[in-house]
């Protein structure tokens, strides 16, 4: 074999996090029968897909990619989804919240209503229908106080529920994904990454992302302390003034509950710098779905949410 060898770089915190994530991805694929990777098109799931490709290179991904489509996406995110899945050579499964609504399993919140909580039913149906026993997610423990408590391999019972009081002990790196039929595990390879780690890694790997993460001009309204993008899923009320601002998105969720932040950061370097000095958390700044109650995330996770 004649290949030029790279100079080994010193082991820094990103190397440690990266190798840990590759280890988790391989371990779950080896231990579980039918894994799947949950992909939203956001930066965390983009990093997860990138890591999955690395873990199994030069082979194809040994699992499909599942997108829970609320029907309230940003177009730029759907474009990115299709691009990223093609680059990774992955098989894409799309499960639509609209189908769950049409089947009468959940009430229709109307065109402008939030479908955030309804996704859980669509997700659990997709896991059940495809007999998945493991689902990779890009959730990080620094995002929320309930997530800070969750194991890297997190057990879900036959109803898809998380029981925070009865988590399996998780010793060393002996990840244990065995489940009985109908149960599954969620696996979170990015558990120990912070928002800044994710951005530094994206910068280091020169990764592709949806364009809405970078500063751009957009018509927005101010609602509930957030800047919401005016579009198909957000219509200004009579008392709301539409203004044009230079904004970017710090997280990517549904268009009607994901706020933009005022920013001029239009390069990865500028974003890393902005994130490093931020004084509001990414979910606090941009996510309406977490603001319902003190334990909004815990309550949704117990039901089987991401």
């Amino acid at each position: 074999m004649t290949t030029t060898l790279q100079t080994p770089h010193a082991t820094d915190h990103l190397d440690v996090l990266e190798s840990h994530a590759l280890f988790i991805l391989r371990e779950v694929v080896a231990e579980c029968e039918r894994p799947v990777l949950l992909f939203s098109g956001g930066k965390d799931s983009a990093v997860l897909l990138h890591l999955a490709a690395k873990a199994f290179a030069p082979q194809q991904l040994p699992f499909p990619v599942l997108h829970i489509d609320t029907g309230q996406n940003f177009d730029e995110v759907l474009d990115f989804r299709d691009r990223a899945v093609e680059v990774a050579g992955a098989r894409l499964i799309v499960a639509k919240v609209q189908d769950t609504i049409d089947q009468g399993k959940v009430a229709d919140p109307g065109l402008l209503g939030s479908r955030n909580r309804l996704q859980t039913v669509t997700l659990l149906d997709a896991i059940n229908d495809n007999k998945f026993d493991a689902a990779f997610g890009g959730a990080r423990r620094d995002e929320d106080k309930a997530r800070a408590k969750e194991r890297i391999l997190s057990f879900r019972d036959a109803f898809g529920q998380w029981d925070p009081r009865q988590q399996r002990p998780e010793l060393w790196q002996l990840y244990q994904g065995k489940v009985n039929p109908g149960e599954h595990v969620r696996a979170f390879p990015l558990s120990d990454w912070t928002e800044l780690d994710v951005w530094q890694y994206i910068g280091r790997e020169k990764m592709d992302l949806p364009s809405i993460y970078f500063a751009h001009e957009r018509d927005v309204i101010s609602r509930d302390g957030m800047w919401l993008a005016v579009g198909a899923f957000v219509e200004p009320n009579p008392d709301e003034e539409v203004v044009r601002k230079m904004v970017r998105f710090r997280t990517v969720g549904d268009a009607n509950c994901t706020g933009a932040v005022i920013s001029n950061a239009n390069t990865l370097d500028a974003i890393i710098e902005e994130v490093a000095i931020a004084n509001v958390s990414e979910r606090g700044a941009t996510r309406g779905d977490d603001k319902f109650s003190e334990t909004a995330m815990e309550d949704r996770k117990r039901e089987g949410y991401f």
Partner: protein
Amino acid sequence: MELATKDLLRLATIGSVDDGKSTLIGRLLVDTRQLFDDQLDAVAAASEKRGIGDLDLSFVTDGLRAEREQGITIDVAYRYATTPTRKFIIADCPGHVTYTRNMATGASTADLALVVLDVASGLKEQTRRHLCIAALLGVRSVIVAVNKMDAVDWSELAFERVVDQIATVSRELGFSSSLTIPVSALLGDNVVEASLNTPWYEGPTVLEALEASEAGSWETAQGARLPVQWVLRQNGGGRTYAGMVSGEAFHVGDAVTLLPAGVQTTIRAINFGGVPRPEATVGLAADLDLADETDAGRGDLIATAPLPTVTKEFEATICWFGEQPFSVGGQRLRLKHTTKSTPVRVQAIKGLIDIESLKVVDATSFTTNQIGLATLVTADALVVDDYREDRVTGSFVLIDEVTNATVAAGMVGHATFL
């Protein structure tokens, strides 16, 4: 802006319930400005809602509904802090004996234990238990925050009394370093800012001590180890063996042995994410290309000399979390060691560890949260090192065959203090 390369230190907080572990971590995060404004606002709102008034710093890590209602920590919270040169992963562990399994979860990956105890009550049995488990799990250095100094009027005498207790137990358990610091987590003295109330204390604050402590994996006299996780088929026909390196680094050209088969070969190439490298350092999720054709698969181990032991019977230290007792002829168990799973049975119970005397006492079974020594026999051969030599090849878990629950943490061999 300086966003330099950082190293990574994993630490776990340990100690008895109500001695102030979560409050100390909350204080550390608040005073180093690791918390965002909205997170701080949420802690203030939650404190007010429960009539606690000001700011209950334990709410920074006690994030579950039940924890806030009961005012105790149930499970480990992971929090992150960075300084210019270091990233910290903090596992804030529960103190209550019922949740020992969760404390062990947090401590099993820690390089360092941050021990919190109440100066007025000193070293409680539960703190001794946690120190003992941390020592068994291979935590080698401890920083001891002697908390609630404000409640004893910053008495040097009260502090010194606890220092003596800590020194004794540290010596018994064989910690390589232990540092004792008088603090008030509630008021912030000696956590991040040096206290004006303890002029008699000249040592570092908790933050200074954390920044100065040594990070990273153990020094080992054993060889390099790679438990095979997954076989990667290469373009053009070859196969490489993927896994995470422990012990020492592998280099291209190293003579290696594939175990348990005992096949000797050399490393032809090392890859990471499909890209060749000259070496695979400890902790790297690499894949190795071997010079000779082998039938290696998941559960095998690639090693350099000195080689680990191939065995089906060994003595181990067991932390038992199961609800039924652990005994000869007990429930059906499976053992997961590195990337291998095999049926296992208990050959003999050697004894229980008495937390007070740190001696092994006679017993025929262990109940929940007890720790002891046992001889295990496995169906398939394992490739093991003593736990004190290698935390990866020396550790295992026991799994209930019926429920798939993890019911024990196990370590090959036993600690020198026993």
